């Protein structure tokens, strides 16, 4: 073996940037020689050193990402302007208004003002009938008979259970009954509050919750007064609700990635409807679980209180530009349900941040994707983030009747959103599908989620642009519907979020 081929000798050479060594390398390859014993030992030592270093670096990266995914506790939520804030009347919600002719008669200006400002003759109360009566077109992907069938099948269990209206803020439906006659007389006693919290989250996971958090009941987020749109009846917490709630358990149910990606096509409403169905069943089971342990409990969908702030208080996520809860790992691709209970010997979760609301200030993809133009764009005053709505016509007296004023957040115009549903023939979901945080459950998205809080704003803008460039979040694409109907082969997308480091939120 020549001296140049002896790796030990080579390592002893003066530290140069190695033109001569290159020739030695070529010689080694051309002669096909192998390392001698001492060379092999050196090789193995260095390989072990390099591999060990790489493993350590990998382990440190994993630990860092896992730590970041837990989020950071925050103390500044909610930020409220006390001069403006007041409890939200449930009658001042678009879906309750859309389902009540009595409210239409009582507040005719809501309809006349909207129609005048948008130069159209829009009837909120006829909206759902018009929406579902639009004919399908089997030559238009996403709007075929099959898509309509998927949508209706998604709602069917709620229809059978007489609880379809849970999505439209109807309280006291059969699935979320206020009847407390089955509360066990003996109350189960936990050893400590943590044990109670863990037990509740374990039960929630069994019944299908993706995440579960526990918050103190907060009257600021409860609708007050409550309203029964079907019977045009105002309800009070003090006289009508069956007990004094102390705790609100909040749970998330996932929606299918490929299905919501078809938005705003009818196909997307299939998973939205299914999300409502599954979340309603989940809330029903969890309420029964608590009543079985001797505590009063009532399940809720969109009724009783605002789901997003309660979910934030329960440490499940942050508020997004699209008005939805952004949960780490899944973004807004979920449905929220709640349990109101008088059980209070439990460890409460805290609001956390993962840097998502801050990211929304640099992103705006949902606003760009919104076919109704109902979400504040990046160009809006303060990026659309503030204590008052600042979308189109929000300075018209009374126009923002549907918003809960005085909370620092992104305000959207849900009237325009609903108007688009009616014209589209289905609920939309484009703001969910286009969200930068709506990702499939794969390691690289978990990685990006982990590094987001530590990345600067300038990088957020780049990441927001990279999202569609990498093929994610495009909406209004008929190919998405065609693709969805082929995804059954192989069942690619895992909705169980096993990579999301704990399905039962230990915040």
């Amino acid at each position, binding site marked *: 073996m020549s001296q140049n081929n002896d*790796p030990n000798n*080579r*390592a002893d*050479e*003066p*530290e*140069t*940037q*190695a*033109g001569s*060594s*290159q020739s*030695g*390398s070529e010689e*080694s390859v051309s002669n096909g020689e192998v*390392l001698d014993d001492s*060379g092999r030992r*050196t*090789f193995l030592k*260095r*390989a072990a050193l*390099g*591999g060990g270093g*790489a493993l350590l670096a990998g382990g440190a990266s994993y630990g860092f990402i896992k730590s970041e995914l837990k989020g950071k506790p925050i103390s500044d939520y909610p930020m409220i302007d006390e001069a403006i804030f007041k409890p939200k009347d449930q009658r001042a919600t678009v879906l309750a208004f859309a389902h009540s002719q009595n409210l239409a008669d009582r507040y005719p200006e809501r309809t006349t003002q909207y129609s005048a400002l948008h130069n159209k003759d829009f009837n909120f109360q006829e909206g759902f009938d018009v929406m579902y009566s639009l004919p399908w077109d089997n030559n238009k992907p996403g709007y075929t008979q099959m898509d309509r069938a998927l949508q209706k099948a998604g709602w069917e269990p709620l229809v059978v259970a007489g609880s379809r209206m849970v999505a439209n803020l109807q309280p006291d439906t059969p699935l979320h009954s206020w009847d407390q006659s089955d509360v066990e007389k003996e109350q189960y006693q936990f050893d400590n509050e943590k044990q109670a919290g863990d037990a509740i989250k374990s039960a929630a996971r069994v019944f299908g919750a993706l995440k579960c958090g526990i918050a103190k009941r907060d009257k600021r987020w409860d609708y007050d007064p409550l309203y029964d749109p079907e019977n045009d009846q105002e309800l009070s917490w003090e006289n009508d609700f069956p007990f004094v709630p102390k705790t609100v358990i909040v749970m998330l149910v996932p929606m299918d990635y*490929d299905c919501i990606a078809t938005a705003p096509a009818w196909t997307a409403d299939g998973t939205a409807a299914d999300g409502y169905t599954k979340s309603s069943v989940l809330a029903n089971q969890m309420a029964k679980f608590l009543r079985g342990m001797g505590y009063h409990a009532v399940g809720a969908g969109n009724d009783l209180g605002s789901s997003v702030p309660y979910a934030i208080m329960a440490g499940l996520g942050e508020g997004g530009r699209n008005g939805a809860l952004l949960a780490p790992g899944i973004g807004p691709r979920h449905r929220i349900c709640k349990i109101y209970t008088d059980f209070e010997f439990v460890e409460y979760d805290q609001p956390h941040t993962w840097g998502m609301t801050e990211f929304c200030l640099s992103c705006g993809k949902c606003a760009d994707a919104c076919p109704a133009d109902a979400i504040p764009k990046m160009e809006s005053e303060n990026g659309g983030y503030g204590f008052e709505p600042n979308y189109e016509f929000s300075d018209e007296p009374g126009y923002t009747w549907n918003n809960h004023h005085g909370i620092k957040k992104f305000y959207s115009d849900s009237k325009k959103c609903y108007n688009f549903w009616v014209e589209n023939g289905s609920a939309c979901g484009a703001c969910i599908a286009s969200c930068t945080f709506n990702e*499939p459950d*794969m*390691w*690289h998205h978990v990685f990006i989620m982990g590094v987001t809080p530590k990345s600067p704003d300038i990088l957020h803008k780049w990441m927001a642009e*990279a999202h569609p*460039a*990498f*093929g*994610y979040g495009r909406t209004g694409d008929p190919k998405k519907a065609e*693709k969805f109907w082929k*995804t059954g082969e192989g069942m*690619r*997308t895992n909705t169980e979020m096993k990579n999301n480091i704990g399905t039962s939120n230990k915040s």
Partner: protein
Amino acid sequence: MELAQWFLMGVIFTIGVFGLTYLSLLVKLKWYTWASLSIGIVAILFGIGWAGASFLEGIAQSGAMALIFFSGSGVILMVLTWRYLVVPELNQPGTTPAAEGRKTEQ
């Protein structure tokens, strides 16, 4: 399939470590040259891993972009490091294989 991907990534990563180790026996380089080559290899592997996950989740465009941006950046970094820090002689006129070939023909 995800498990298979992790296994394959482990194999590729190990090959990368062995490759760098073997290189360390052949040439003596400055620390920043090693750092640059290592970053290049990690970028290439990151892109391959990203692409694998993207193809598995059905977003092929993401996989292609990852190969271009992450792995491509890694390849460019390694090539530049090799040419300018490891074997700068390659950049002298008349030292490339093509130039050698031309000399022979003359």
